[in-house]
C-alpha cells in the first residue's frame, strides 16, 4: 500500500519534471541534473545519519568510487548505461560494507574521524596510477543520448531525465525502506543501542547495512555526476564535497527525504545565484568569487537558527498552524496537539529522532 502511494507520487513528480525540462533552457536542465545527482547522495546520507544515527564525512569518497567505476566501465568495457549505473552502485555498496564493518565499532567523533580519513585519502589514490585513473587530469566520460530520442534531442535534457529518474527511484526505494522493518530497526538502534539490542536486534549488522545502503546511493550519485559533467577527476571529490553533502542533509533536515531535495537545491543553486548577483552588482572578481562560500555559511547559520530541524522541519512547523485554522485541513494537522514539533528540539540528534517518530522520511 505504502509502495503504491510512493509510486503514484513519484509518477506525478516525474511528469512535472519532464514538463519542466522541456520548458527550461539547457543550462537549467543541466542544473536540474546536478541537483538530482546531489539528491541521490544526500538522500542516502540523510538515511544513514538521520535513521541509523551514524555520521559519515566520507561520502565524497564513495561518490568518487562510483564515478570512477562508471568511467572505467564505460571507457574500457563499453557497458550499456543501466548496467554501468547498477555496477557503480554495487561496487560502491561493497566498499561501503568494508567501511561499515569498521564503522560499526566506532562511535561519534571517532567514526567522523575515520570517515574523514577516507574522504581525504581516497581521491589521492587516483593519482597513484595515472595510466589507469588519468591522474590529476581524470578521465573523460563520453555518453550519447539514446537513438530513439532522435539526433537533435538536447543532451542536457536527456541527462536531466536520466538523473531525475534515478533520483526518484532512489527516493521511492529509500522511503519504503525507511517505513519497513529495516527502517524501524535502524531508528531503534540509532535512538538507543542498548534498548535495541535488548529487544533482539542485531545492532552491528544493522549499522553495517545502513552504510551499505548509503554507500550504494553515493555510488549511484557519483556515476550520475560523472555522466552529467562528462569528467571524473580527483579535484571533484575532495573533502569539500563530503562536507557539502553533510551540510545539504543538515540544511534540509536530517532524516528527511524531502529535506534531501531542499538541501540539494541549496547546494547547487545558491552559489550560482549569489555569483550572478555579485557580478551584476559590479563587485570586483576577487570579492565576487569568494562570496558564494560566505553565502553558503550564512544560509547554514540562518537555517540552523530559525529552523533547528532543517528546511523541511521548518516548513512543516510553518504549515501546521495554518492548516489548523482551516477546518478542512484540520484532519491533516491533528498530530500537532500531541506531536513535540512545536517545541524546537535543543539538539540536532533529538530533532532527527523527532522526525523519525513522525515518519517524515
Amino acid at each position, binding site marked *: 500500500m505504502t509502495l503504491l502511494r510512493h509510486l503514484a*507520487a513519484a509518477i*506525478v513528480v516525474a511528469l512535472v519534471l519532464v514538463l519542466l525540462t522541456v520548458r*527550461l533552457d539547457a543550462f*537549467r536542465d543541466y542544473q536540474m541534473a546536478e541537483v538530482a545527482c546531489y539528491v541521490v547522495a544526500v538522500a542516502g546520507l540523510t538515511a544513514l545519519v538521520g535513521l541509523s544515527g551514524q555520521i559519515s564525512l566520507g561520502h565524497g569518497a564513495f561518490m568518487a568510487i562510483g564515478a570512477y567505476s562508471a568511467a572505467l566501465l564505460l571507457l574500457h568495457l563499453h557497458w550499456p548505461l543501466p548496467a554501468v549505473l547498477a555496477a557503480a552502485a554495487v561496487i560502491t555498496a561493497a566498499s561501503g560494507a568494508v567501511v561499515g564493518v569498521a564503522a560499526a565499532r566506532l562511535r561519534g567523533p571517532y567514526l567522523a574521524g575515520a570517515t574523514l580519513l577516507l574522504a581525504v585519502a581516497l581521491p589521492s589514490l587516483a593519482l597513484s596510477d595515472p595510466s589507469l585513473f588519468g*591522474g590529476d587530469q581524470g578521465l573523460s566520460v563520453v555518453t550519447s543520448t539514446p537513438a530513439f530520442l532522435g539526433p537533435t534531442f538536447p543532451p542536457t535534457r536527456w541527462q536531466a531525465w536520466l538523473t531525475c529518474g534515478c533520483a526518484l527511484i532512489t527516493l521511492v526505494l529509500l522511503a519504503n525502506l525507511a517505513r519497513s522493518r529495516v527502517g524501524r530497526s535502524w531508528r531503534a538502534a540509532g535512538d538507543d543501542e542498548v534498548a535495541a539490542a535488548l529487544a533482539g536486534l542485531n545492532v552491528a549488522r544493522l549499522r553495517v547495512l545502513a552504510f551499505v545502503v548509503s554507500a550504494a546511493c553515493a555510488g549511484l550519485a557519483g556515476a550520475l555526476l560523472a555522466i552529467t559533467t562528462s*569528467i571524473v577527476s580527483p579535484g571533484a571529490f575532495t573533502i569539500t564535497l563530503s562536507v557539502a553533502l553533510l551540510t545539504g542533509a543538515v540544511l534540509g533536515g536530517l532524516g528527511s527525504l*524531502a529535506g534531501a531535495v*531542499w538541501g540539494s537545491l541549496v547546494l547547487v543553486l545558491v552559489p*550560482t545565484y549569489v555569483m550572478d548577483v555579485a557580478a551584476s552588482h559590479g563587485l570586483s572578481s576577487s570579492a565576487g568569487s569568494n562570496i558564494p562560500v560566505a553565502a553558503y555559511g550564512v544560509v547554514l547559520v540562518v537555517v540552523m537558527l530559525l529552523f533547528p530541524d532543517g528546511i523541511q522541519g521548518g516548513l512543516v512547523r510553518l*504549515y501546521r498552524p495554518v492548516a489548523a485554522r482551516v477546518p478542512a485541513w484540520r484532519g491533516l494537522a491533528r498530530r500537532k496537539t500531541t506531536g513535540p514539533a512545536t517545541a524546537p528540539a535543543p539538539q540536532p540528534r533529538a530533532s532527527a529522532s523527532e522526525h523519525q517518530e513522525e515518519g517524515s522520511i
Partner: protein
Amino acid sequence: MNRSHRAGLPATAAVAAIALALSACGSSGGSSSSSSSSALTASAPGITAKTITIGSHQPLTGVAAPGYDEIAPASNAYFDYVDAHGGIYGRKIVYKFLNDQYNPADTVSVVKQLVLQDNVYAIFDGLGTPTHLAVAPFLNSEKVPDVFVASGCECWNNPAQWPETFGWQLDYVREGKILGSYIKKHFAGQKIGYFYQDDEFGKDGVKGLDDEIPAADVVSRQSYDPTNINVGPQVAALKAAGAKVVVSFSVPAFSALLKLNSLKLGFSPTYVVSDVGADPITLAGLLEAYAKQGGAKVSGNALTQGIITDGYLPTLGDTGNSWIALFKKIHDQYIPKLPFDGNVLFGEAVAYTFVQAMLKAGRNPTREDLVKAIQSGLPQGPAVAPYAYSASVHSGMTGAYIGVIKNGTIVQEGPVLTTTTAPTSAITPYTGSAPAAPASGMP
C-alpha cells in the same frame, strides 16, 4: 506516518514553482545572418548590434589563483581600453570570467553556464591544462570558438578533432626544447634534476627537455600533484641525487615551494623555471608570504635572483619597448591596484590578440568567421616570435628568448629562438624584426 507523505507534495509543488520562476530568466541567442551589410546585426550567439559577449573560466580562488587571478582582470582592462577607443566595429566587449578554482569539475559547470545560459560568442583564454581539457570536447561539439587557451599544452593543436580550439602562448614542448638546449649548452655534463607538475603541462615540458638534454645527465625526475603542497620528499630526492641544475615546470605556488624547501634542506642548485612559474613579482610575493606563514622572513627578490627562465612576450623591465609602454599605460589607467607583472602583461597581450582576430573576422561575424580568421594567420602583435596559426596548425607562438631574473626583473640573454614541436627539428634564432605597438593601441 502518512502525514509526512502529504507534506512531501507541497514541497514538490514548491520546487516546481521555483524552477518555473527560474525558467523565466532563460535567454535566447540571435540567429546568424549575412555579414555583408554595413549595419551591425546580431550575427551570431553572443553578438548584438552593440556588444560581443565572451566568457572564460579562471582560477580566482584556490591553489592556482596567486598571480593567475590577475590575468582575466588584465584582459578586461585591455577590452575596456578598446571599448573607450571605438570598440570592435563599434561593439563593446562584455567579458564574463567565472571562477573554476582550477578544479575540472567546476570548469565544466561554469563553462556550461557560459555557453548554455549566457550564450557567449566564444570562450576566450580559459585557464589551465587539466581544467580546459575537461571542456574542450563540449565546446567543440557545441561549435563554440575556443580561442587562445591559457595553457601551453600541445594538445590544443588538434584541428582534426578539435577544430574550434586554438592555443596561444608558446607550447610547453617548444618551451622545454628551448630551455633544454640552453641547459645542454651551458651546463654540459652536469647532473640535472626535473621537477614538474604531474599532468599534461609538466609532461609536455619534460618531453621538450628530453629532446635536448642527454638522458644520462638527468639524475632525478620528481613530479608533484598540484593539490598536495608537501613537496619536501621530492626536493629531498633531488638533493640526494646530487642535482646541480633543477628544471621546474611548475605553477608559481610550486616554484616558490620548491625554492623554500630547498632552502630548508640547504640545497642550492641552479634553477631553470618555465615561464608560467617564474614571474619574478608573483614569485617574490609568494616566497615572502609562505616564509611568513612558516615564521621566517625572507627577501623575495634575493631568492629569485639568478633563476633562469624564458619569455615569449617582451620583458617587463624593457621600458623602451613600445608594447610594454602601451600595456603599462592601460594598466595604470584601468587596474592600478594590481602589480604590473607578467600575469598582467599576459592578460593584456592575449586580449590584444583576440581583438586582432575579431577585427579580421569581419563586421558581422559568425562563429565560423572567427575560426577562419585565426586559421588564415594573425599578425605577430606583442609576441616576440610569429604565430603558427593555419588550417592545419592551431598552436600559437613559435619561439622565446632565454632570460635570467636579476633584481626582480627578467633580463633577456641572447636572441629569440624558434623551433617546432617535432623532436628532431632544430632550434634557430629568429631573424625577423618584432613589430612595434600601434600608437593608437588598437590593432
